[in-house]
């Protein structure tokens, strides 16, 4: 009997210690000025603006008498929210990706169709005819360049429009190599960058992305002979050839690559305007920007960045959130859009490209400025937001193999086709 007690206690102790090891890192930041008024919680999923957001929460709490707490988690957004919903403790306001608004919105998001800001944006997300997602910013993907470094070698002004085609781009790369830049390109090996950002453009630049995705599900798409697939992979081959980490591309660390780009050791890297949050810490060159992915094509896609609204706030609609909290959350969103201080928070302090026509955006960083000018010129190709949740991981792994030279293009195409045809279509 005694032995059983001891073993029972031991098992319990072990279970507790195991559970303690499995914690994920969630950091909270309270405003500290709880004045007995309404309290709302905000989930922020953009790590690069967490510090600014915490400061803002403190100021906002003092000014408006609403206790605002901002949380951040390094977990996948959907996974983190899942645990919060499982615990019946949802955030009042949650910042999520577009796909999460579609998957969670119907059940968990409040209808905000009547809000003032709706008419000022083209980027809000509606689910079943009701506006549910508040667009936090515009983000776009393309090739980031360091014009200062390029001009130092070529001696002439760098105009990205001259390098729309892969041929012209390759000629420039050769010129840079001849001019002393040993390897002018960086490639991020992260699966989200390869699959959800670069490869994703293959879907998004099809004539009809939805139809193309459906044919992938059905197994009828012939990826290996698809024009867009081959155009983009031709460009990827060139990027791989001039990659500074070509010897061991999957060991490249993102921070190192960003630093090289910022300092002009390399001139090009595929990415997005959010990369500025890393680049800005490395004393970047003065003239930087973003350009479309060069391709030998005439369909116009090599003149456009790919992107649109990114990260959306939604207000929790469950009974866990009181009416006062809902009102406070609505007020906060309106404040962001219509109050000069709210505007300054988004554009100046967080360097986000505003998704609202009434928000002034003169103080943006160079990458965001590029995005803004492409967006204003109507040169943005829409995001495709309905990938299955495991897409980035599995296609990303296949693309890492391609990057490491372990499979060829036909093998890669086959792996991607296999993935899609064995996956249950996402309803939307």
């Amino acid at each position, binding site marked *: 009997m005694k032995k059983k*007690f001891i073993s*029972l*206690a031991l*098992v*319990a102790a*072990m*279970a*507790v210690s*195991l*559970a303690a*090891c*499995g914690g994920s*890192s969630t950091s909270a930041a309270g405003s500290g000025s709880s004045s007995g008024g309404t309290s709302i919680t905000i989930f922020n999923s953009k790590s690069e603006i967490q510090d600014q957001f915490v400061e803002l929460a403190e100021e906002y709490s003092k000014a408006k008498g609403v206790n605002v707490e901002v949380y951040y988690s390094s*977990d*996948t957004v*959907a*996974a983190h*929210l*899942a*645990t919060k*919903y*499982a615990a019946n403790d949802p955030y009042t306001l949650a910042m999520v990706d577009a796909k999460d608004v579609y*998957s*969670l919105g119907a*059940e*968990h998001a409040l209808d905000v169709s009547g809000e003032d800001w709706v008419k000022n944006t083209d980027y809000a997300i509606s689910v079943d005819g009701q506006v549910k997602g508040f667009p936090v910013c515009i983000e776009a993907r393309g090739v980031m360049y360091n014009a200062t470094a390029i001009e130092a070698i070529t001696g002439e002004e760098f105009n990205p429009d001259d390098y729309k085609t892969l041929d012209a781009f390759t000629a420039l790369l050769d010129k840079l190599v001849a001019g002393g830049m040993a390897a002018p390109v960086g490639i991020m*090996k992260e*699966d989200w960058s390869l699959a959800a950002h670069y490869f994703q453009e293959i879907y998004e630049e099809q004539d009809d992305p939805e139809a193309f995705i459906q044919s992938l599900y059905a197994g009828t798409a012939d990826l290996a002979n698809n024009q867009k697939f081959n155009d983009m992979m031709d460009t990827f081959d060139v990027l791989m050839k001039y990659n500074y980490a070509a*010897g*061991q591309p*999957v*060991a490249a*660390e993102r921070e190192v690559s960003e630093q090289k780009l910022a300092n002009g050791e390399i001139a090009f890297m595929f990415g997005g305007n959010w990369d500025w949050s890393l680049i800005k810490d490395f004393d970047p060159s003065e003239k930087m920007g973003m350009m479309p992915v060069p391709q030998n094509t005439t369909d116009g896609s090599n003149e456009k960045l790919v992107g649109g609204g990114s990260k959306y706030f939604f207000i929790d609609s469950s009974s866990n959130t009181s009416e006062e909290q809902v009102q406070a959350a609505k007020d906060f969103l309106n404040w962001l859009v219509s109050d000069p201080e709210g505007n300054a928070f988004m554009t100046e302090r967080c360097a986000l490209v505003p998704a609202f026509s009434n928000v002034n955006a003169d103080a943006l960083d160079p990458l965001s400025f590029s995005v803004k000018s492409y967006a204003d010129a109507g040169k943005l190709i829409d995001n495709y937001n309905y990938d*299955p*949740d*495991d897409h980035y*991981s*599995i296609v990303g*792994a*296949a693309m*890492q*193999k391609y990057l*490491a030279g*372990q499979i060829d293009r036909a093998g890669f195409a086959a792996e991607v086709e296999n993935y899609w045809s064995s996956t249950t279509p996402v309803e939307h």
Partner: protein
Amino acid sequence: MNTNTMSYKTKQFLMFAGVTTFIFCAVVIVPFLYGLYLTFTSWDGVSASKPFVGMANYAATFQDAAFWQALLRTAIYSVISVILVNVVAFILAFLVTSGVKGQNFFRAGFFVPNLIGGIVLGYIWKFVFNRALVSIGQSLSVGFLSTSWLATTNGAMLCLIIVSVWQYAGYMMLIYVAGFMSVSNDVIEAAKIDGCTNMQTITRISVPLMVSSFVQCLFLTITRCFMVYDVNLSLTKGEPFNSSVMAAMHVYNTAFTYKNYGTGQAEALVLFVVCAVVGVLQVYIGKKAEVSA
């Protein structure tokens, strides 16, 4: 006072084990049963409805090739790690009980890695493997060091094993130290007088008398290796090409990232059964080998 009544026994049980039993039920038994129920639903982890789907999740588990690969990978990793951890720990324990100068300092030193959390440890070693070793290798032009091990499939597994051994060896060393200390000096002296060499004293006298230490160490290392997650996450994150995804990470991904909570839960159950069978078997066999002086 009659100590043989039902009420006395119940009271005694509650007094000594009531709290732990309650906590054990609350944090282990109840979640376990609830998890069992979830394996029969197609819950996505967020939705309010949990549609009943019968055995579909178990069918999906058996068809999920990536899960079985991860499980096999975990088994290989565990076998190698468990052997290395215990060999290293045993040797360390022998060295720090043999009376070397400053052995308490060494004991503390070897134990320290165990005090660093797995996540931090993973990031530290990532730096070592990706930068430190690579720059040493390049400046001395040592071929196998000048590229990052983390970028190759076998290399990533090797790195995981190295880090696990470094992390656990110190902890297991303490248990073996206790084992060595528990062997009475009389027995050792008697063996010496009878003409045993040092080696014979260890293999014939010390080791058989400290089998319980081995049982404990093996149990702890096996279960920890099978459940490895934190080091896996921070050191390799499953890369390159998802080739270092261990079973626990695959379960987490399936349940939370890919939003197949039911299937993830079913896979977790399979992982639990595997761990339980291995653990119980090992303890059972170990107990049989125990002797007393």
